[in-house]
């Protein structure tokens, strides 16, 4: 029973830096500036519903894009020779080694009206394109930043699929396409779920990407929360927003896990 003390440091860490701060968020969300209990913060959130929905659909869209781009990559990676797998893995992780802020800034200098792409177009005598300050640019930023989070869990699941299962499927009459749809795809569902979760959760609460790449009017919920703390000095409203966002994320993740049926191991082996 001594072993439970081994997790002690983390328990202390979690209490200090997760549970207590969460309690503070709760406290702020349900009080006003004077510390009196109020539901006003929650009631005011209705006005921000369009922004929340906008954040949600953009993150969902980015997650789907990441899945469509990431799945084939992860699949090819899992089929490559072990040496190549290591190289691909490194290449995919490489952008993650650079600062998130730096990567987003790099996109700004690529896409802005006097940026690298538009300057190149101009020097070729073509008219510049509106590449920045629109929804497309924000989604591009999200996909670019979070794509590795999609590929990694997919890759991890795909390399674990027993080669014999694929042979068994062929043996029972599957052609190449059927092997994929009837065995590989269903078995990679856990990877798809965790990939979508790992893209969706940070994307829905992101704030920097939309500030740098999005149009000034079309802010995301993350930006609004940030501005409540840094600009509007209304931490109570910001806390309420964070709380609702958190609840929504829990709901989404919970729903996804429920429908992917990752609740196995029932029944006991007999004989």
């Amino acid at each position, binding site marked *: 029973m001594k072993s439970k003390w081994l997790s002690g440091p983390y328990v202390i860490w979690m209490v200090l830096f997760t549970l207590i701060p969460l309690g503070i968020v709760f406290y702020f969300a349900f009080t006003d500036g004077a510390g009196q209990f109020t539901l006003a913060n929650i009631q005011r959130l209705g006005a921000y519903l369009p922004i929340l929905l906008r954040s949600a659909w953009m993150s969902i869209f980015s997650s789907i894009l990441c899945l469509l781009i990431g799945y084939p990559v992860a699949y090819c990676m899992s089929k490559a020779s072990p040496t190549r797998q290591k190289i691909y893995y490194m290449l995919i992780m490489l952008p993650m080694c650079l600062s998130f802020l730096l990567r987003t800034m790099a996109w700004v200098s690529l896409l802005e009206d006097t940026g690298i792409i538009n300057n190149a177009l101009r020097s070729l005598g073509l008219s510049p394109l509106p590449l920045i300050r629109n929804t497309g640019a924000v989604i591009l930023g999200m996909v670019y930043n979070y794509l590795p989070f999609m590929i990694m869990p997919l890759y991890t699941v795909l390399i674990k699929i*027993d080669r*014999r*299962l694929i*042979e*068994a*499927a*062929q*043996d*029972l*009459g*599957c*052609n190449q396409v*059927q092997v994929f749809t*009837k*065995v590989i795809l*269903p*078995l990679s*569902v856990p990877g798809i779920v965790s990939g979508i979760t790992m893209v969706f959760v940070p994307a829905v609460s992101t704030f920097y990407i939309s500030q740098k790449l999005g149009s000034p009017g079309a802010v995301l919920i993350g930006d609004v929360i940030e501005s409540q703390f840094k600009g509007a000095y209304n931490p109570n409203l910001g806390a309420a927003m964070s709380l609702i966002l958190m609840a929504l994320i829990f709901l989404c993740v919970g729903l996804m896990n429920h429908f992917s049926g990752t609740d*196995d*191991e*029932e*029944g*006991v*082996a*007999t*004989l």
Partner: protein
Amino acid sequence: MAKELIRLTNLTMTFEDGETILKGINLYINDHEFLTLLGPSGCGKTTTLRMIGGFLTPTSGEILFDGQRINELPPHKRKINTVFQRYALFPHLDVYDNIAFGLRLAKLSEREIDERVMEMLDIVSLKGFENRKVTSLSGGQQQRVAIARALVNRPKVLLLDEPLGALDLRLRKDMQNELKRIQQAMGITFIYVTHDQEEALTMSDTIVVMDKGHIQQIGRPEDIYNEPKNAFVADFIGESNILDGIMRQDLLVEFFGRQFPCIDKGFARDEPVDVVIRPEDIDIVPADDGHLCGTVTAITFKGVHYDIIVDFKGFKWLIQSTDYQEVGSYIGIRLNPEDIHVMKKSEYSGMFGDYSSYSAEYDEIAEGGEDEE
């Protein structure tokens, strides 16, 4: 006359790393036959099976199925199904859907699928398990699902790749009987791969003994056991004392400086040969009556019999007897002509059949590599 179904001609396999696993396999397999490929790890038995299944393409040679060349035919177009090592059941499907997998691909009506799956569940004694997750089944149950999943497609040939390797001894014996029963009831050709000689002897119509990419011997279990072709087969199938001898003339062999009548002939005069004497064929007699005399150096109780190690002029024999012998006692043995089996010399001569390094665990087959490719 049984009808020939599969023929392998000069089959060789060299892998990308340059290792040659098969060196010219010639074999024909009859319809309704239970044929076992038997050999140690790395002998090429699994490679042969995978070629018949379509998972490997031979480097050279031909695979004929019903007279048609099928070297390059992909697995899903062959009338052959496989029971894989460690079953390879689909973890995302329940027992019913695993068994129905092949039938659904064949686009049968749901009614017919249901009939056939239920029939199969009955045959493998898994009625009532339809909706169980395969991950919740015991090894023996998973094994039977794997067999049902393959047989439900009514293949012409069923390939079985060490299917009982992961089961405990008792279950293995039960499954051996069950497999034999299913094979006879359904009249399907079984090609069975194993390294377990007892399993091969129990179940097979024909045994193919393989080693180092070559077929060493093909024959009925009795023939393989009683008339092994070389020292490898004699040692791999059962226990054998293998001695150097000289064939003085037909029906007369000399070893340990003494001539024995035997039942073998067709050797050159004074040809050096390997002599096999099975431990259970040797009769122990008082020293005065023996053809040969030696000293008991060890005795181990094995249940049905004792394993007795006897030193004859420095060469140690294994003798199996139900009678206890004192260690250190001086005993004689008698050999009847039919107890002596004479083999031609081979590359395996001198490698097997001496019990000087006898340990009581000799029959625990020391096979680590079940993942043999």
